[in-house]
C-alpha cells in the first residue's frame, strides 16, 4: 500500500512535471518535481532504499520517454545513493538539511545526466549544462520548503514505517 501511495505521488508529480511546469519555465528550465520527490524520499528512508526509489522513478520516466533506457534510472539512482551517503547522519526535520540536499542533489543529478548523456551519445554543450544546472538548482531549492513539510508528514502517515525513518 505504501509503495502504491508513493507511486501515485510519483504519477502526480510526473503529470505536473510534463504539463504544468513547462508554463513556469525560466531560462528554459523548470522545477524538477520528480527529482525533488526522489531526494526527499532518500532523506527519509536512507540511501539504500532511496536508490531503489530513484531507480524505480527513473525507470518509469525512461519508459515514458521511450528513448535512452537507463538515462533517468541511473541518474536518479546515483543521485539518491550519493545524497543518502551525504545526509545519512543528519537530523531530517531541520529544514536546512533538505535545502542543502536538494541543492546538492540537483547539481549531482545534472552532472550525472551530463555524463550519462555523453556516454549515450547525446551532445549536451557545457554552457547548457552549467546554465541548466544553476537555474534548476535555484528553482528546486526555492520550491523545496513548500514541498518538504507536506511530503514529510505524508511519508510519516502513509508510506514509511516509523522504524525506517532515517535508516
Amino acid at each position, binding site marked *: 500500500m505504501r509503495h502504491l501511495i508513493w507511486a501515485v505521488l510519483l*504519477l502526480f508529480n510526473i*503529470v505536473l512535471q510534463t*504539463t504544468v511546469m513547462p508554463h513556469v519555465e525560466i531560462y528554459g528550465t523548470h522545477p524538477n518535481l520528480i527529482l525533488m520527490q526522489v531526494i526527499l524520499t532518500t532523506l527519509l528512508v536512507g540511501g539504500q532504499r532511496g536508490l531503489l526509489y530513484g531507480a524505480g522513478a527513473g525507470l518509469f520516466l525512461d519508459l515514458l520517454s*521511450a528513448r*535512452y533506457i*537507463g538515462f533517468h534510472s*541511473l541518474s536518479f539512482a546515483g543521485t539518491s545513493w550519493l545524497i543518502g551517503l551525504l545526509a545519512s547522519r543528519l537530523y531530517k526535520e531541520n529544514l536546512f538539511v533538505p535545502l542543502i540536499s536538494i541543492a546538492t542533489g540537483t547539481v549531482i543529478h545534472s552532472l550525472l545526466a551530463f555524463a550519462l548523456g555523453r*556516454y549515450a551519445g547525446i551532445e549536451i554543450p557545457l554552457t547548457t549544462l552549467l546554465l541548466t544546472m544553476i537555474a534548476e538548482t535555484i528553482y528546486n531549492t526555492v520550491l523545496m520548503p513548500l514541498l518538504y513539510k507536506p511530503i514529510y508528514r505524508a511519508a510519516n502517515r502513509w508510506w514509511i514505517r516509523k522504524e525506517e525513518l532515517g535508516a
Partner: protein
Amino acid sequence: MFRMHEKKLGIAVVVGLLLGLVLLRTTGGEREATGIERYTQALLAPLQKGATIVTDQIGALGQSVVNYKQIKEENEALRRENGELRRLNSQLTQYQLENLRLRDLLAFKQEKEKNLQLLGARVIARDPESWFNAVTIDRGSEDGVAPGMVLINNDGVIGHVTSVNPRSAHVLLIIDKEGPVPGMLQTTREPGIVEARNDVNSQLQMIHLRRDAAVQEGQLVITSGLGAIYPRGLRIGYITGSEPEPNGLTKRAMIRPAVDFQRLEEVFVIQKVISQEGEG
C-alpha cells in the same frame, strides 16, 4: 545476515548499473517504442490531457486577468485618443462650416460692394442678460465703426451700433424691444414699423399696417429706408401671419426674421451707403 544483505544489494546495484549502461547505449536514437513503453505512455496520456486542460483553463483565466489590465489601459488610452480625435473632428467641422459661411459672406460682400461699403466683423460676445438682445463685435472706432452704423449678413439686417470702443462695438439687434426698424413689404411697398414681439422671443412683428393692406404669408419684409439709421432694401424677414390691431384701424403682421440670431458669428458693418435699392 547484515553482510549477506549488503552483498546481495551490492550485486544488484552492479548488475543494474551494467544493465542500465548497456541499455542506455543501445536504446538511444529513433526506434519503435516497445509494448511496455507504449503502455506507460498510454497510462499517463489521459492524466496529462486532463492536467493540460486544467492548466490551459487556469492559464486562460490568468491571461484574461492580465488581458483585463492591458485592455483597461488600452481602453483608457483609446478613450483619450478618441476624445482628442473628437475634439479635432469638431474643430475641423467648425472650420468647414466657417469656411462655408465666409464663402457666402464673401460672395455677399462682392455682390453688395457697388451699393455698400462693408467691413467684416465677428461677434465676440452676447449680452449677459437674456432679456436684452445685444451683441459685441470685434471692430471699433479704430476700424472706422461709429454709432448708428447698421450690421447685416448675407441673410439680412441684424441691428445697429449703439456704442463704440476703440476695438469693439456694442450692437442692438432688431429683435430687441428697443430696436424698431422702419420696414415695408417688398412686393406691395406697404410701410410699417418692425419691432420685437412681446409674446414670442426672437420673433418680430410689423405694426401700423393699413387695415386693408394685402398681407400674405411668406412675403418678404425689407427696410424701408425711412428714419436715419437703416438704408432701404435690407432683408428683415418673412410674414408668417397677420391680425387686426386692437384699435381696429390698423393691423399687424407676424414676421420670422431672415437672420438666425442664435447663430450670429460673422457680420458686416455698413460703413457707407453708396446707393440704396432703387437708386441709380
